[in-house]
């Protein structure tokens, strides 16, 4: 394979040619992408298990909006997409060397990201109140009663008699997504602090781009989760 110097003009944040840069991108970005590949496999384990269990027990699941509150989550999805836009705006501001906008958009991303987590906590709270926990339906609560009655529920068919798989997969998938958002918010706070110290310039704003990749990845996972958990 030839020397990789022709790749240098592609990525302005590559260091001077002291090494063969096989990927054509700077090291931090490459590292984050590689880390994200590992995250892809992690979510494959969780989402794949859900799909497999769902196919193996077709009658163990509720229809959309029966148990989960789709309108609230739709708003939350919108919130997360907004945070992705503010993130990418922050990156654009950094690339333009616009420090004021960079700080503004980063702060906005932190706040909107935290809001997403807050709404998710609210959602969990509601669900537990109605009687869905990771182990299934809580005896005596609304959902357990409805499932036991065998009658049609909230405009859909009757609930499955046991909510075991439903609760298990729902909380595990959305919980680990929420955990990733929380980690993202924490890292983003660090980046914001560094932005206020003026650490990111038009020629070197690697931190903003790298945290952005993580942030958009988490958004991407949510797009998948929202569709297969809430809408299918």
């Amino acid at each position, binding site marked *: 394979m030839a*020397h990789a110097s022709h790749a240098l003009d592609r990525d302005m944040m590559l260091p001077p040619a*002291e*090494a*063969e840069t096989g990927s054509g991108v700077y090291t931090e970005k490459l590292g984050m992408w590689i880390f994200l590949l*590992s995250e892809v496999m*992690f979510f494959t384990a969780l989402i794949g298990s859900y799909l497999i*269990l769902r196919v193996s*027990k077709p009658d163990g699941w509720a229809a959309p909006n029966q148990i989960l509150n789709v309108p609230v989550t739709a708003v939350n999805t919108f919130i997360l997409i907004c945070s992705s836009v503010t993130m990418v705006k922050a990156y654009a501001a950094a690339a333009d060397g616009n420090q004021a906008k960079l700080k503004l958009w980063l702060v906005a991303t932190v706040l909107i990201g935290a809001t997403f987590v807050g709404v998710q906590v609210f959602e969990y709270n509601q669900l537990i109140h109605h009687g869905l926990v990771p182990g299934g339906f809580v005896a005596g609560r609304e959902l357990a009663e409805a499932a036991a009655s065998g009658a049609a529920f909230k405009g859909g068919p009757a609930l499955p008699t046991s909510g*075991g798989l439903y609760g*298990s997969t729902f909380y595990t998938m959305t919980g680990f997504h929420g955990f990733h958002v929380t980690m993202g918010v924490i890292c983003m706070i660090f980046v914001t602090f560094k932005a206020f110290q003026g650490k990111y310039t038009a020629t070197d704003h690697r931190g903003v781009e790298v945290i952005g990749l993580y942030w958009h990845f988490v958004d991407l996972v949510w797009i998948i989760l929202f569709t297969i958990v809430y809408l299918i």
Partner: protein
Amino acid sequence: MTSLATPVESHVQAHPDNRSFIQKYIFSTDHKIIGIQFLLMSLLFLTVGGMLAMIIRWQLGYPNKPLPGGTVLPETMAPGGVILPEFYTSAVTMHGTIMVFFAIMPLLVGVFGNFLIPLKIGAPDMAFPRINMASFWVAVPAGILMIAGFFVEGGHASAGWTSYAPLSADPEYTGVTAGQRIWCVSLIVLGLSSILGSMNYITTVINMRAPGMTWFRLPLSIWALFITSILVLLAIPILSGAVIMLLFDDVLGTHFFLPAQGGQPLLWQHLFWFFGHPEVYILILPAMGFVSDILSNGARKPIFGYHSMVYALIAIGFLGWIVWGHHMFQSGMNPTLGTSFMISTMLIAVPSAIKVFNWLGTLWGGKIRFHVPMMHALAFVSMFVIGGLSGVFMASTPVDIYIHDTYFIVAHLHYVLFGGSLFAIFGAVTFWYPKMFGRMMNPTLGKIHFVLTFVFYNLVFFPMHQLGLQGHMRRIYDPTIYDFLKPLGGLNRFITISAFLLFASQLLFAYNFIVSWFRGKKAPANPWEDTGLEWTTPSPPPHGNWPATPHVHQPPYEFNSPHVKESDFLPQTQSLDAIPGRSSAGAAH
């Protein structure tokens, strides 16, 4: 031509090194120190794993007799020295877990991935030195947890290293509550360490190779570590996900693997082995890489078929993902799926065969030096052939019906992991010890250790094939319960005695390792007359490895190149233009 290898030796300490003791040796970001830290930690775990093996062997050879010195064990493990069945299953579980996750894997990947990658590709350090440090200091609590599990109420996890659900998912079935949870948490934490490490190795190899170190000039050890890191990166998260679900089944009351509310016990096996088979290759590919380096050095010849060796590594790395079902032929899996898995499993024998024949081709026509690393490398080839051939039996689904879960499997996996990986590790440690510590290990002790290990190793594991062929099941506490296993008592005792002698032989290695560190002969920069980049810097290399970035001009294994007459090796950094009267064509191939 001796001048080729020496010029850098005068440049000791190119960068001024002002780090405090703690920065230098404890919370170090230097890849060499982190490699040595992993080495010490994993050798410690290797010892623990070995002791557990002795406990297992004692019970099998002398069922229900008190273990010599076993009275030091608590009443809950071995009252009066007699091993309890619950402790036996715990020991079996932890022997596997510790050897796989805390000994062999860190020895191959953590130690040599860290130590060799920057040194062999010409980088001053890893791409992310602080993440590298974190990957070690995350592994330490995981290790402490895994040891702590022995001392909690109910004993340590006892569902096997494969932790098949539902046995592992509900304490009711094993009587182990805390131990199993500790097992899960420890593996999740260790998984984080492995992912951080592998991300670092991959980034480093892709982006930090010295100028001129093109992909097909990489030594096979680096190729192997690179492919292995990809496997670690993509396989470990699957294990983490599965173990998290297992832990939730136990702690949060979820139902992933518990059938009562629709969970699937076989889902655990699929997830585990989807991780587990790449893991098997994680445990052997780096060993193949080290052996290639050492064999070429010992034979004083370029490696035979370098390109096909690389493609074979890549093929194994890919095929490793589509064969996981061969661990599950008898599990109740769809038999048609079994046939597809059998075919892919059979095919994976091909790249392994290519590697073996190319190693033989490397020896052919060489001028073989029998130094200690070479002996271990040769033993690797010989033992790996046995482990590979015995694999064909279990790949054949009908034969597997009979030998599945018998000692035949135990023999097979130990021929690959001990006869293969561990011999390669002994060879690699001896080979790179001078670079790590600046001193040579004692070759006489090394040879005695090698011979004893080779002999006793085969006396322990070869007869296990026969145990398996007579139907001896794995993981049984007392084989004398079965009439058809009673005639095998003598063989079991023979294996046990050999195992104790094998364990005792390792004391020689430990002695050699520790004493050489302080008293060993001072090592020159290039004691084995090797071509790799790491031998162009002093032993041990300074912080930052080289005063200036090295430039690479040669393929990795230019021994006895016709372009050089003065010595029998051509370092990778040597440009032929620099030698008066040489053509600039380079070493063609």
